[in-house]
């Protein structure tokens, strides 16, 4: 039904694109083979953002990562926003489109955060409908990302991995496995990140994310990790990532660094570390 362009990101390292890195990337991208943009930053009519994106798209595979569809929300999807997204995807023809298992809008307000949802039969049906609607509107398969969570819903009856696997089965979507989110959520939920990875529907994974987090504590002194994308990837996340790659083989891997963004060489060095792990897993 859909084209398979969701599979076209190269099984190599990419980075989240930041405009301040434009000149450095065009001069020497180093190990970076592809770039990811936040869809909502490229919905203007023109100017530098679109000009840079057109120039980048001539040299790099581009992944469009949405942060505003509110796929996990109770309300119907914002069709005006879906139309903007379709316009972007139609002209850019990106290698991949991904969104989040989360919600971000309610009652006409956009909260600019990835908010959690309970995992129940009712939410499963609604999220599946939303994914169907997005895939129909865009005419392509999408990837859905596992969230970093800070709390749980007492009413949840599905594990997150089963919930995601069932969404894949019902909609044909694929998954974006954010390894930092696994580590953050498992620490916060006091579960085992390796068990989560073990239960994850790895056949459906089309992309991986790596990013940094902050360490805080909850009211009872338990560790509470915050997914802030403002720091280097920590060693335990690199180890989890190496385990995933050993099982999955080389897969498109993104370094996400969205706040307190460092100079390009710092980001390129993170991408180089991912590249080493990817290269070690390539068949010889």
């Amino acid at each position, binding site marked *: 039904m859909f084209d398979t362009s969701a599979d076209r990101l190269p099984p190599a390292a990419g980075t989240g694109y930041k405009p301040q890195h434009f000149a450095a990337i065009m001069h020497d991208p180093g190990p970076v083979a592809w770039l990811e943009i936040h869809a*909502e*930053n490229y*919905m*203007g*009519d*023109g*100017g*530098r*953002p*679109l*000009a840079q994106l057109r120039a980048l798209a001539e040299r790099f595979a581009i992944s469009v990562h949405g*942060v*505003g*569809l*509110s796929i996990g*929300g*109770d*309300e119907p999807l*914002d069709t*005006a*926003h879906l139309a*903007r997204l379709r316009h972007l995807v139609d002209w850019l023809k990106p290698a991949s489109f991904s969104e989040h298992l989360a*919600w*971000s*809008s*309610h*009652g*006409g*307000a*956009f*909260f*600019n*955060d990835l*908010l*959690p*949802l*309970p995992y129940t039969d009712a939410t499963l049906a609604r999220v599946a409908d939303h994914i169907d609607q997005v895939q129909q509107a865009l005419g392509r398969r999408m990837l859905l990302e596992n969230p970093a969570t*800070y*709390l*749980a*819903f*007492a*009413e949840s009856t599905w594990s997150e991995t089963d919930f995601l696997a069932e969404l894949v089965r019902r909609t044909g979507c694929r998954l974006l496995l954010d390894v930092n989110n696994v580590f953050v959520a498992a620490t*916060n*939920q*006091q*579960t085992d990140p390796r068990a989560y990875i073990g239960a994850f529907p790895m056949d459906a994974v089309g992309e991986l994310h790596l990013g940094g987090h902050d360490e805080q504590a*909850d*009211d*009872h002194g*338990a560790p*509470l990790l*915050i997914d802030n994308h403002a720091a280097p990837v920590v060693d335990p996340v690199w180890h989890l990532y190496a385990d995933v790659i050993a099982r999955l083989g080389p897969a498109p891997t993104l370094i996400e660094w969205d706040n307190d963004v460092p100079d390009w060489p710092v980001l390129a060095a993170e991408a180089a570390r991912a590249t080493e792990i990817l290269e070690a897993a390539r068949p010889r």
Partner: protein
Amino acid sequence: MSTADFAPALTDPETTPPRGLVDPEGRPAGARFDVYRNNVVVGLTEALVTGFPAIRGLVGAEFFTAMASTFVRAHPPTSPVLTLYGADFPAFLEGFPPVAHLPYLADVARLELALRAAYHAADARPIDPARLETPDLEQAVVTLAPALGLLRSAYPVHAIWRAGLDPAAPKARGGAQDVLITRPGFDPVATPIPPAAAHFVAAIVDGARIEAALARAGDDLDLAAILTLLMQGGAITGLEI
């Protein structure tokens, strides 16, 4: 639990988070909910810091953050596209008692919004300057670039805006100031212009022929100067006679 239960507590710190949100021991989520509250307010405040640097410079970083968090709770974005978030900020500033003694802030915010709109406006190719050298120029209807903006203020808004961005800028003096916003290339430029030139540009924006725009501008207009400024700004994209 629905998002309708969750959403109100995100922007209202006085609202108790909904029941049924738990920590790993099954206890109420407590500070864990505050992570989301904090993300929402800090993230949206950050969008205003990026969008209104001169306002921040004028009121100070600490005050700006406090004021912005009040604004974002009362006026969260209505669209996931944040590039133009803050359209309500000037009106908010006009009604926010702690800044009642700074009545020019709203116009400075309008200038910053106009610059942001210009940054994201559609691209358009300027005309060849030679086309202005026609004897029939007065009969012409001019098309202006989508990035063009005009702000008319009762305050010396351009000078105050500059002072907000650069504490070393000359102290703002005088009264009303009109500002032309153009985008030569990709970076918007704000230029103060005389009142006659502002009348002229406003008439052109309304679709008037140059002849009619000249009549509206009056005798004080330096036509060559405003046309040069518009051409330098890449703002004249069509000329129809």
